[in-house]
């Protein structure tokens, strides 16, 4: 049945361009599926705009701030408009990597050991003096990243202690808190999960960046990264990975849709979970559509399933 679907895209986050690409692709698919599409940029008029149209469903094609931190979900809850992707609570939990990592630890889900520090603790409490202790505990190389930011913005791998301050300042340009995390040498994987009552995993994607890690440029540029689907894992390894992804999805109370990113230590057979994304990219080179295609779903079929379960009461 034809529905009025608002595609929420753009927004105020640093991932605006990504979001517009995702949103446009989703809008085209929705039109092909026979729906009426209303594209909406998420700005100061969003509440007014949502209110002025008769909307059956909001498709959240936002990435990062506002779209994946529970903000837009709460607005839609208040307005009583059904929306795609997980609800408010899972978004709040997953957007802050510190909170989600703490939950992983409490649920015995492997995650790389880490410490976090915030801007004011450096400026006012002399936290820079902690760095030698952190290096001693975590070791080098170390991953330095902002606590709340997507698309690998603000991330650096630090190999020596001299480069650490610069990487911390870089990460703190993107977020008030910085995570200093042990670098895990392993296979980078992304597991997409779909389904409302019985979530299922789609084929695991293996990411092999041509540079040393999957940074912003590797994510956005065609040819910068090689992807293998399904990942080159043994059936046993893949089972561990998929089970862990489902465990993460459940731990963060996610429903309908998510993507879990991890590094798999092949030697120890440990899947180290990095984060969960509640609004996975939907561009031509994004991981979720890639994974769905391997499962035999076209992009339109993927979008159709996402909206179908979001419209269910």
């Amino acid at each position: 049945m034809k529905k009025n679907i608002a595609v929420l895209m753009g927004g105020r986050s640093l991932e605006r361009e990504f979001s517009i690409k995702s949103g446009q692709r989703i809008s085209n698919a929705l039109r092909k599926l026979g729906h009426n599409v209303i594209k909406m940029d998420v700005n100061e008029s969003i509440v007014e705009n949502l209110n002025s149209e008769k909307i059956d469903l909001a498709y959240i094609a936002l990435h990062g701030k506002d779209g994946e931190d529970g903000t837009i979900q709460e607005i839609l809850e208040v307005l009583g408009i059904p929306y795609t992707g997980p609800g408010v609570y899972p978004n709040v939990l997953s957007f802050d990597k510190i909170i989600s990592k703490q939950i992983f630890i409490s649920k015995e889900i492997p995650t790389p050991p880490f410490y976090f520090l915030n801007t004011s603790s450096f400026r006012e409490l002399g936290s820079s003096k902690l760095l030698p202790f952190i290096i001693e505990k975590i070791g080098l190389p170390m991953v330095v990243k902002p606590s709340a930011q997507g698309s690998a913005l603000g991330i650096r791998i630090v190999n020596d202690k001299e480069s650490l301050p610069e990487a911390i300042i870089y990460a703190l340009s993107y977020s008030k808190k910085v995570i200093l995390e042990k670098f895990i040498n392993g296979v980078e994987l992304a597991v997409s999960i779909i389904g409302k009552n019985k979530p299922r995993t789609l084929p695991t994607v293996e990411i092999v960046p041509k540079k040393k890690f999957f940074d912003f440029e590797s994510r956005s540029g065609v040819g910068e990264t090689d992807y293998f689907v399904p990942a080159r894992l043994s059936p046993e390894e893949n089972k561990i990975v998929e089970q862990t992804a489902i465990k993460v999805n459940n731990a963060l109370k996610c429903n309908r849709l998510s993507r879990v990113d991890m590094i798999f230590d092949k030697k120890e057979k440990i899947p180290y979970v990095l984060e969960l994304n509640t609004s996975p990219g939907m561009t031509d080179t994004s991981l979720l559509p890639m994974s769905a295609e391997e499962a035999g779903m076209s992009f339109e079929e993927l979008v159709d399933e996402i909206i179908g379960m979001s419209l269910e009461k």
Partner: protein
Amino acid sequence: MSKKVTFDYWNHLYSNRTEYMFSSEIRDLLALSARPDIISFSGGLPEVRALNFQRLERYVKRIIKTDSDMSLQYSGSDGFYPLKTKLTEVMKLEGIDEVEEDIAITTGGQQALDLLSKVFINPGDVVITEAPSYTGALNSFKSYEAKIEGIEIDSNGMKTSILEKKLDELSKKGIQTKFIYLVPNFSNPSGVTLSLKRRKEILELAKKYNTVILEDNPYGMLRFEGKPIPTIKELDIKGDKHNVIYLSTLSKLLAPGFRIGWVVAPHPILEKIVLGVQSTILCVSTFSQRIAYEYFSDPVWQENIDKFKSIYSTRRNTMLKTLESNFPKGCSWSRPEGGFFIWLKFPKYLNTKELLADAVRNKVAFVPGSGFYANGRGINEARLAYCTEETGRIEKGIKILAGLVKEKIKLYKSFK
């Protein structure tokens, strides 16, 4: 069975030069600056709202009424002759005395740069630019696989002693420098003007090392203070062999939407440029050229330039004053006498790409310096355009930026 994902089935067909076409973090951050809530010091966007739209409407109506057949038709690849006549008059105001036959009209100054790159650069050829230099020019030269040698500047423009050393070094290795690219007036991005002494010296060096100068002068008529300095083209009068190729644009004198630029060059070079226009676009938009002709036939255009100058100088004054009273010690900036841009230098440790991420989150945008260098320098430098925003927003934006810079300096010092 696992398989490698193929996004682009045509990868094996692409030319090497497509390697220079990629997305960057900075580009995506700057894309945000198009949002109205962002105070943008990033793009050098002329204040087209200062134009008299009713007059423009009148020109267009007149063209449609009296000359629709011709103005909607293809035209000569060298450009619309009556517009060239007007351009000779415009150039005369800057001391350049040329005839219509010396001019080729292009689709914006950018196409002139592309065609000149095509005419001169073989892969691996050396070209010389100011460092920092205009990104659009650097990208054009890079796309033809040039090796770019950037020459340091100071408040008088390109340092000629360094230029001479470089030309000498290249010449001793048997390397012919293909051209020296300069924006001598209120340069993009630095805002710096090349002194008369150095203009003469660079011209002499070009002659000595048997190369040409690309003199790109988009901002020359937008001088708010100080005495105009002769263009290098004007200085290049001795002998029969001239070494200056002069480029300009109507983007700042009229509006960038018309996409009109022009080149003045020795005839053999000009012929190649015209052939280049022919093979790439056949001709520059006839309709745009017709409107531009009407615009420059109406004496009011010079009043418009005064209006532009008054707007830009007020904005520059506001930006300089706000920088002066809010920016912390350790930062310095250029004081342009015209044009669109101020160039900022921060303490060595302050990475402006990182500052941009912070700034955009706080609704201010500027362009980090590294994009204006061919070799990854400029990490602690930035370009601020004062031409686009109104004074209230300039003040607000600079104050926000100053606050962020102070915080960054404090954070950095906490590691000492």
